[in-house]
């Protein structure tokens, strides 16, 4: 189910502006990889290239390759819609569909895939909500609006929605930055559980969080405002946080800047 990602010589552009320069990295299946770095360093932008969400923004394009189990996501015969069905995404702010019930939110992706059978949907919704540690809290009100849940519950609902379609990879763009510490803990526990099944990539501004949840950490930085972001260093999380190779990494994680 989980698949590996190999990125080679990737440049990311918004129109003429180069946002991220020359990134190469490998992400192993069934691991959690954290992207850290100061604001504007391009880590979220880079994350969005991994499921071609980057192209949703006008002028967004890339050079280089992003390969999922050896297949280049950007080759001409690949449909971006198909990519997004394989590589799921959870956003910074919980964004359940406001007009849909909890059930319909989780079922949304399956319905897009053409699943109509009630029993199949119900089974997948229950499995996904259990997978997102939300089932016990919402099982009695599946028909209530998803927007009526608390922020942390909404974010777990969004995770359930993302994993309902059984993606190969799950991308998380600062999934806890709008949540309180208790909800954050719930999400982190969840990440730890679901990494058995998925390849997870998480962008975070919270370095303790990166240290807590990830196996590997990638540090992004930019030389100056207006310059493209670059991948400075990537390695095992324990090493990055105790004994980084680059001076800039050490400065950042020890709080000397950023």
């Amino acid at each position, binding site marked *: 189910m989980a698949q590996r990602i190999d990125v080679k010589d990737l440049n990311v552009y918004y129109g003429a502006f180069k946002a991220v320069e020359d990134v190469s990295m490998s992400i192993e299946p069934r691991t959690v990889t954290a992207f850290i770095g100061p604001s504007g360093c391009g880590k979220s932008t880079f994350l969005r290239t991994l499921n071609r969400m980057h192209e949703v923004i006008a002028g967004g394009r890339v050079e280089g390759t992003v390969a999922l189990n050896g297949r280049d996501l950007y080759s001409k015969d690949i449909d971006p819609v198909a990519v*997004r069905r394989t590589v799921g*995404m959870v956003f910074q702010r919980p964004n359940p569909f406001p007009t849909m019930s909890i059930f319909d939110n989780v079922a949304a992706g399956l319905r897009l895939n053409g699943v109509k059978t009630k029993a199949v949907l119900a089974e997948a919704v229950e499995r996904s909500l259990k997978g997102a540690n939300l089932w016990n809290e919402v099982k009695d009100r599946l028909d209530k609006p998803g927007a009526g849940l608390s922020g942390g519950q909404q974010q777990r609902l969004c995770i359930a929605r993302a994993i309902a379609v059984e993606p190969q990879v799950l991308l998380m763009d600062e999934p806890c930055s709008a949540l309180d510490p208790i909800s954050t803990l719930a999400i982190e526990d969840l990440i730890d559980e679901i990494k058995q099944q998925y390849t997870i990539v998480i962008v975070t501004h919270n370095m303790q969080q990166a240290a807590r949840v990830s196996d590997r950490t990638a540090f992004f930085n930019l030389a100056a405002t207006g310059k493209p972001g670059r991948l400075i260093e990537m390695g095992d999380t324990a090493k990055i946080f105790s004994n980084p190779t680059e001076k800039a990494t050490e400065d950042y994680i020890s709080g000397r800047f950023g």
Partner: protein
Amino acid sequence: MTSITGHSEADAGPSGDMAATGRVGDRVFSALATGSGVFVVSLIGLVAAFLLAQAVPSLMDNKASFLTSREWQVSAGDLRFGIADLLWVTVISSVIAMAIAVPIAIGVALFLTQYAPRRLARPFASLIDLLAAVPSIVYGIWGYFVLRDFVQPVQTFVESALGWFPLFAPLTVSGTIFLASIVLAIMILPIITAISREVFDQTPAAHKEAALALGATRWEMVRTAVLPFGKPGVISASMLGLGRALGETIAVTLLLSVTRGTFSWSAFAGGETFASRIANGSAEFDTPLKTGAYIAAGLVLFVLTFAVNAVARIVIERRKAFSE
């Protein structure tokens, strides 16, 4: 929301004089604002009162049933008038106009907000808005001299295919309700498009990205995120369009063949709406009793339009609860 977190003087609303300082500028402004409000409310009240006062004597003298009769006989001394066929023609012509205009307006609004390149969307939207700037008499003339010849074959086809259904029963009338409906549809298209375009444009990017990240195509994204979000806005836009179609006078008067004494459920019949009956009858406004009959018809149109606008208002209010 503020009432949950606490209470402050500013929450009290505009009712009291809490914030007033008593300075001349404040007093003048508050008098002007209050005056304008009172003026508008009393204007509406006076219009309603005028219509009632003028209509009631004629209604008292009416020998036919006002609501169910199809007669319209207002010659002196023998008042027999009813609004049954006026109500039918007014409502059916507007409903057909809506059935044509709403889907097109939604399509255009979706195209402008979700599909068209930005630099094309703006001029295109202005072009649609220009439709609203065409005077209704011009629409009437255009419909009469140009559109009628194009609509004729369509009518003939529908009549031959679905003529067994009362709404499509064939009749030999040149200015049909159907023709008027098409012109009305074009006239209400700009307002429905403009409002729909605005609500679709306000769909939060987060909802659209949520759909796209699930692997939705552009159309599926529209269906899961944009349309549900915009639905209340589209409904109220349609109601505003309906209000306009119900009251449209001059184009409809020009287009509809007057066929008094005969009545048909068919959309290919002629007839008169409230507005066109009043316009056609303007020569008879010579005694208060005759005039009152027409004013009574106008009163019903007033109530009908008022009800439609009220429904639109309620839907807009409901939408507020959704977006919070």
